[in-house]
């Protein structure tokens, strides 16, 4: 049990170092409640998708289409709100639309991967192209502004000073942790990712489980789309561009093996926070996004190198 704990400790140390760098270079502008909430609000959207992605990657898959699915959900939900929704229907329908669209995209991914035996990389790459294309068609490439007050009021609410978005992220993380570590679903995910043939011969319905994993990450994309729509008050086919990169990076530096069979929700949450905080520190120091991208790339490589060293040590003893 010291293994995962030690790894998470390393991530916490990394996070603290980044915070220290933030305090030294930006002082009070970094170390304020407002700024902390900014970081957390930003982390929430990516974080929710990353929890779903942790399951997919642990189950031996990958989903490159999360950003595109998020865009499609945002556009579909806002179109529904502005055009279809009658005055007297409740805004909660918008929520259902986004979650349903996300889950449906995941279902398509899952079915093609599990039953069509197309590798996840290609399937979700195709979904990436198709979903974003569909989002452009529906929105006619225009940014759609949300005018439904009930929706905006609900999602921008605070509870005891904590924004609802952050609370959603926290709830999803805890639920994800429980699902991952304490349920048959989580255990089967580890089995399917670790040795699909053994899982199949043990009587697990591997195909059905794989489908469920992609539906789960699709659902997370729908939820994240709602969070992003409320934060920006817009739905757009450009939402979530390159989200897949941030999400996969956060999951991997968190310690989840890309080969499947081993994963960690706590690590993923820490990975998300590290990237969000790092981006914030760069922004406060007036570094542009290009510099951030270079730094992110370096961090990903170093993290994976470290992970491989750890994995080798673990198997050779």
């Amino acid at each position, binding site marked *: 049990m010291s293994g995962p704990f030690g790894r998470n400790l390393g991530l916490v140390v990394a996070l603290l170092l980044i915070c220290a760098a933030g305090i030294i270079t930006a002082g009070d502008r970094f170390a304020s409640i407002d700024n902390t909430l900014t970081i957390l609000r930003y982390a929430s959207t990516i974080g929710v998708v990353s929890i779903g992605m942790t399951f997919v990657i642990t189950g031996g898959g990958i989903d490159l289409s999360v950003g595109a699915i998020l865009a499609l959900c945002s556009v579909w939900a806002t179109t529904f709100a502005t055009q279809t929704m009658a005055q007297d229907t409740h805004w909660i329908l918008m929520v259902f639309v986004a979650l349903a669209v996300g889950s449906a995209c995941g279902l398509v991914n899952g079915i093609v991967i599990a039953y069509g035996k197309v590798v996840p990389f290609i399937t979700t790459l195709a979904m990436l192209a198709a979903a974003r294309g569909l989002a452009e068609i529906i929105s006619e490439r225009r940014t759609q502004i949300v005018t439904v007050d009930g929706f905006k009021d609900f999602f921008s609410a605070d509870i005891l000073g904590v924004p609802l978005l952050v609370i959603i992220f926290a709830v999803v993380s805890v639920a994800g942790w*429980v699902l991952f570590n*304490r*349920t*048959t*679903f*989580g*255990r*089967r995910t*580890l*089995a399917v990712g*670790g*040795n699909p*043939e*053994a*899982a*199949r*011969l*043990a*009587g*697990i*319905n591997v195909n059905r489980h794989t489908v469920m994993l992609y539906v789960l990450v699709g659902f997370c994309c729908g939820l994240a789309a709602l969070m992003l729509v409320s934060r920006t008050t817009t739905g757009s086919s450009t939402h979530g561009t390159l989200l897949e990169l941030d999400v996969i990076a956060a999951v991997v530096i968190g310690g989840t093996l890309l080969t499947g*069979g*081993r994963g960690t929700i706590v690590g993923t949450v820490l990975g998300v926070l590290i990237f969000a905080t790092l981006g914030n520190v760069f922004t406060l120091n007036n570094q542009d996004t290009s510099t951030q991208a270079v730094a992110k790339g370096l961090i990903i490589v170093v993290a994976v190198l470290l992970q491989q060293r750890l994995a080798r040590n673990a*198997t050779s*003893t």
Partner: protein
Amino acid sequence: MNDTPLLTMRGIVKRFPGVLALGGVELEVRAGEVHCLLGQNGAGKSTLIKVISASYQPDEGEILWEGKPAALSTPQASMDLGISTIYQELDLVPDLSVAENIFLGHELSTAGFSQRGETIRRTRELLARLGHSEIPPTRSVGRLSPAAQQIVSMARALSQDTRLLILDEPSAVLDQGEVDNLFRVIRNLTAEGVAVVYISHRLEEIRQIGDRITVLKDGSTVATGLDVNQTPTSELIKLMTGRAIEYVFPPRGDAPAPTGDPVLEVIGLELPGVFTGVDLSVHAGEIVGLAGLVGAGRSEILETLYGARRPSAGSVRVAGRELRRGSVPAAVKAGVGLAPEERKSQGLLLDQAIYRNITVSTLGRFSRLGMLDSRSERKRSAEVAESLDVRPAGVDRLVRLLSGGNQQKVVLARWLMRECRVLLLDEPTRGVDVGARAEIYTLVRSLADSGVAVVVVSSEVEEVLGLSDRVLVVREGRVVHEGPADEIDESRVLDLVMEGKVA
């Protein structure tokens, strides 16, 4: 013969954190001999091989190559001396051709351009030297049989001027004819002065091919340089186990032939191109064995009635209810369990704890609304593991760290936990040492006595006959004989198995 041994190892000690893997190994290999390494699983054979091939560095001890101290510091250094190892799991690239595999890493090239013609010519030479010129150098390795793949591995070793060849259980994937062929190849090599270190669990093979034997037990050499022809089997087993046992099969129950409806009933099962018209019925408490050559369709029959393959015709009934074709979950739900042939790749989650491997098919029982109660999971697993005497005790250990016999017990524990009605065992003792074999036989018999219907597939005729109540002999996808196990002997089974093969 030169008196200086090719390889001498003295007092080799290798420690891993918390484990003494090798505690003083002595080994002496002469040029041109087949030196057999014998020992139970966990005796240190694999570790010793890795020391010779320099994957591991010994903590103490002395290694001499032709009488001179040799520093085996890297695998490359070991290869440069002429040491090649062919591991149990062949390390070939399936999508590359035979020739490309053989010269992988030391490609023949001029200024970076590969010499295709020369490579293929040299490949033909090597294959001919091994007596297998029928293997096409340009075919991709993934399309070859396991036996041919092994020949390719050996050709790769020879392509690098090998002087010491280590073979780790080479016969495990071969049938009798292929083993004979392998032995011919080995004899050719030793005649050329190559030394061979041969590892096998099968004593009869060692008698056939070996010159001298070194026995390891618990990481130490207990006997070295024994003459193969002058050491009785009982002596060898005593050295390996520290006690004197032969293959011990538990007595069959003397209950009268089971009556009533069979638990497992298979009618007219067919998988095109593999087997056809297979009928099989097994009663509660009965052990039925399937004997036959590798490739005769035995494993495929098991996998098909387990739902892992979809038959084109026929039905499988468990306790009178027909199973949905080609569905493993349906079979498991009906109470069928399989201990697959390839334990590591098909049966186990190697990087997961023992208890998780045991409960993977019974998770529903330990959960309420999907939430697992891992305390009761551990507790029940520990009880089952203890009843099977899985060693070392403790269910939080990773399965990867267990010996072959104990890994097999973990697979059995999984189905014991499920209280299954039908248990299918495919090569239950492959890679399991002699001592643990007897335990597994006893275990299987006691499962049957508790009312489980058992089907056993094994390449070892002795095992099928010794363990089963009734035997089916399979040849080329057809059942050619069925009858009580005590009314047929090994030579008759071999007759049936071979019959018609030559003509």
